[in-house]
C-alpha cells in the first residue's frame, strides 16, 4: 500500500516533466508539421546549462532556470528561421534537418562537459517532505512539480485566453485558412517553436538535479515524448498532458515491479496498440485526408 501510494506520487511528478516536453513537441508538430527529432537534445541543453552554471559556477538555481529557458528558446528560434522555414514544403527535410541539429548539439555537449561519466547536479533544495508518516517526497521534486504545473498553466492561459494563442491554435487546425484570415504564419511558427523550446528548456533545467546528465540523455526523452504524443493524440495538447500523467504512472509502476527496460518495452507496445486501435489517440480528432 505504501509502495503504491509512493509510486503514484512519483508518477505524478514524473508526469509533469513528460508533459512539459511532450507538449512542446505537439505544438511544433501541430503548427509546423515538423517532427522535431532534436527535441530531446533541447531538454539536454537545458540540463547542461544548469550543470554548467549552477553546479560548476555556483550561480543560484532560479536565475539559471531562466537562462536555460532563454538559451533553448533562442536555439529553437534559430532552427525555425534557418532550417524549418526554408524546408517547410517537405516535412521529411525538416525531420532530417532536426537530426542534423541533434548531432551538433550532442557534440557541443561533449565539448562543454567532456566525455567522462554522467554529470550529477546536487539538488538545490535539500530535505524531504514527509506526509502521513510514510510518504517521502524530496523538496526538490515538490518544487519541480509545482514549477512544471505553473508552466503548463501559463501555456493553457496563453492558448485559450489570448488572441495570439487563438491564432496559434487556428494555424494548427488549418494553415491555409488562417493565412487567409490574415494570420502571419511565419510569426506563429516562430512563437510555436519559441514556446516549445522554452518548455523543453524548463523541463531540462528542472530535471537536471534529479537525473544523470550526459550528451545522450535526449534519446529517452524523445522516446517518451513520442509515446505520450501518440497516446494523447497527435495535435492535441490536453491529450498530451493527460497521456503524460497516465504514461508516467504506468511507467513508474512497471519500473517498480519489473525494471526500467521492461517498462519502456511495455510503453512502446502500448503506443503500438493505441496506434492500431485508435490512431487518433485518447483526445485526438480525426483529420480528413
Amino acid at each position: 500500500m505504501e509502495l503504491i501510494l509512493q509510486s503514484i506520487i512519483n508518477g505524478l511528478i514524473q508526469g509533469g516533466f513528460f508533459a512539459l516536453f511532450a507538449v512542446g513537441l505537439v505544438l511544433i508538430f501541430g503548427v509546423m508539421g515538423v517532427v522535431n527529432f532534436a527535441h530531446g537534445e533541447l531538454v539536454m541543453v537545458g540540463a547542461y546549462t544548469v550543470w554548467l552554471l549552477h553546479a560548476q559556477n555556483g550561480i543560484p538555481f532560479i536565475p539559471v532556470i531562466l537562462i536555460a529557458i532563454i538559451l533553448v528558446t533562442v536555439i529553437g528560434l534559430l532552427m525555425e528561421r534557418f532550417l524549418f522555414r526554408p524546408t517547410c514544403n517537405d516535412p521529411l527535410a525538416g525531420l532530417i534537418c532536426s537530426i542534423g541539429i541533434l548531432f551538433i548539439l550532442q557534440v557541443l555537449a561533449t565539448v562543454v562537459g567532456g566525455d567522462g561519466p554522467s554529470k550529477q547536479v546536487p539538488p538545490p533544495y535539500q530535505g524531504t517532505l514527509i506526509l502521513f508518516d510514510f510518504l517521502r517526497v524530496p523538496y526538490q521534486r515538490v518544487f519541480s512539480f509545482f514549477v512544471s504545473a505553473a508552466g503548463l498553466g501559463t501555456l493553457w492561459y496563453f492558448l485559450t485566453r489570448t488572441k495570439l494563442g487563438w491564432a496559434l491554435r487556428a494555424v494548427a487546425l488549418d494553415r491555409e485558412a488562417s493565412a487567409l484570415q490574415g494570420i502571419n504564419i511565419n510569426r506563429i511558427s516562430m512563437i510555436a517553436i519559441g514556446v516549445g523550446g522554452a518548455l523543453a528548456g524548463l523541463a531540462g533545467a528542472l530535471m537536471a538535479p534529479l537525473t544523470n546528465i550526459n550528451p545522450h540523455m535526449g534519446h529517452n526523452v524523445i522516446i517518451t515524448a513520442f509515446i505520450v504524443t501518440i497516446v494523447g493524440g497527435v495535435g492535441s495538447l490536453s491529450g498530451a498532458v493527460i497521456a503524460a500523467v497516465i504514461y508516467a504512472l504506468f511507467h513508474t509502476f512497471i519500473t517498480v515491479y519489473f525494471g526500467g527496460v521492461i517498462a519502456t518495452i511495455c510503453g512502446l507496445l502500448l503506443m503500438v496498440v493505441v496506434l492500431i486501435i485508435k490512431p487518433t489517440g485518447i483526445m485526438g480528432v480525426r483529420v480528413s485526408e
Partner: protein
Amino acid sequence: MKIIIRLLKIIAVIIFLAGLIVLPHYLKFHYQDLLIFLTVNVLVVASYRIVTLTGEWSLIHAVMMGVGAYTAALLFKNFNLAIWFTLPLAGGMAGLIAALLSFPLFRMTQFYFLIGSFAAGEAIRLTWMQFIVPFGGSGGLSGIEPPMIGSIDFMDPIPYYYLALGVVSACLFILYRIEKSRIGLTLHAVHWKAPLAQSVGVDTWRYRALAFIIGSFFVGIAGALKIHYLGTITPNQFGIGFMVFILIWVIVGGYNTIFGPVIGVVVLTIFDESVRGFGELRPAIYGGVLIISILFLPLGLESIYTKFLTLCGIGGNSSDGPPP
C-alpha cells in the same frame, strides 16, 4: 552518337567492376575492413529503397538488419550452421518478422507509420537487451566465426570481401530486377497515385507490405553478412543511431533511382573517413553536411549527375520522379 555513349557506358561498367575486384589488394588492413562494411551498407541502403518506393519511410530497417544478424549469430552458436545456410535463413527470419509486423504497421501511413515503426523496432531491440538468454543482453554475443572452405580462410579480409561482394552484387541485381518488374512498377503507382492504383484493382496495403517484406529480407542478409565478419553482436549496433545513418545515406544520395542511395553511402563513408582526424567533433560535421545538403541539394547527390547530363543535352531525365 547513341551507340558511342552506350559503348562508353559498357566500358565504364567493366572498368568499375575490375576496379572493385583489384581494389582491396591496394588498401591497408583498416581500409579493407571498412570496404567490407561499406559493401554490406550498400545492400542496406539498396534494400531500404524498396521500402521507400511506396512512399513510406520506416524507422525499423536497422532493427530488421539486427533480426537477420541475431538469427545468423544464434544459428551459428547453437547449431553451428555454415554461412551458406545462415544467410538465407537470416533473410527469411527478417522477412517473416516483417510479414507479422506488417499487419499492425500498415494500418498506419505517413507520420504514424514513421513513429509506429520506430516504436516496434525499439521494442524488439529492448527485448534483445532485456533477455540475457538467448540474446546475451546489452553485452550481446561474441565468437561468431567466419566460414572456412578448404584452404580459404574467410577470417582474412580479402576473401571475405569477395564473398560479400558476390552476395551483395547478386542481391542488388535481384533488387534492381524487382524494381523494374511489374511489382516494382506497381510500387511506384502505389506511391504516386494510390487512389488510381486502387481503382484499377491494386491492393495497396498488400503491396506496401510486400515491399516491406522484400526490403527486410535483403537487409536481414546484410545483417548476417556483417555479423559473420565482425564476430560480435550487440543490440546497440542496430539502434536509432544506425537507422539515422541509413536515412542520411539515402537522403544525401538521393532516392529517385537505385543509384542515389548507393552513391550516398559510398561518398559519405569516404567523407567520414577523411574527417576521422576530428575525433569527437565528427558527428557535428556530419550533422552540418546533412543540413547543408538538405538545404542546397534537396534531390541528393545523384541530381548532380542528371543535371550534368541535361547540361550536355543528352537528357538524363529520370522516369521515376513524381508525375507532373
